[in-house]
């Protein structure tokens, strides 16, 4: 069964360092998303992406964050200068169509900022 894959599964970094989280969405999906979940809290929307452009971003997604689809398969989230409060589980998701609540999530990348 097709699935969204994310790497790394866990990354530990020092505050101020750059981090890139990688995702391979399901191959025939056109809509891509990043969400994050701080430990024990609810899942929060970060950004949506379609046709090589950001469709919408949340207040969390400030200038330190960026997304890119560098090739036909990868979708990346970059945090330029990590802060302690960026520590969270980051989930990539994709969907076939735009107006759907059925998103396919990856297993997440846990980011720990020290």
């Amino acid at each position, binding site marked *: 069964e097709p699935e969204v894959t994310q790497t790394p599964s866990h990354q530990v970094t020092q505050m101020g360092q750059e981090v890139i989280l990688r995702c391979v969405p399901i191959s025939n999906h056109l*809509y891509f998303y990043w969400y994050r979940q701080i430990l024990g809290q*609810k*899942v*929060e929307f970060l950004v*949506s992406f379609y046709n090589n452009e950001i469709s*919408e971003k949340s207040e969390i997604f400030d200038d330190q964050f960026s997304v890119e689809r560098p090739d036909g398969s990868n979708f990346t989230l970059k945090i330029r200068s990590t802060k302690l409060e960026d520590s969270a589980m980051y989930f990539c998701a994709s969907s076939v169509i735009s107006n759907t*609540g059925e998103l396919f*999530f*990856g*297993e997440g990348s846990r980011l720990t900022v020290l």
Partner: protein
Amino acid sequence: GESVGLHLPTLSVQEGDNSIINCAYSNSASDYFIWYKQESGKGPQFIIDIRSNMDKRQGQRVTVLLNKTVKHLSLQIAATQPGDSAVYFCAENTYTGANSKLTFGKGITLSVRP
């Protein structure tokens, strides 16, 4: 402000019993709701969705009920199994014209006793 939230943090049920997980929302304009399941160490997994033109929708062993009058949503799981143990989230989908955006409520942990 607008919010989607769950009534109880944990629910413990006996294997074989039916489970009911409740969710309240505050925005009367909300028209599309989804239930997600998150198993330990995994990303959210779509269970079932319902749009506001319906008040009930059934899937395999699951039923979602929507009461727009009191802004209440519930997920019923029939014959609960150990594999149903997970955190359950209700979410609202907002379609921005380009992409969907899910606003998740706080999760409720379902624990199934053997």
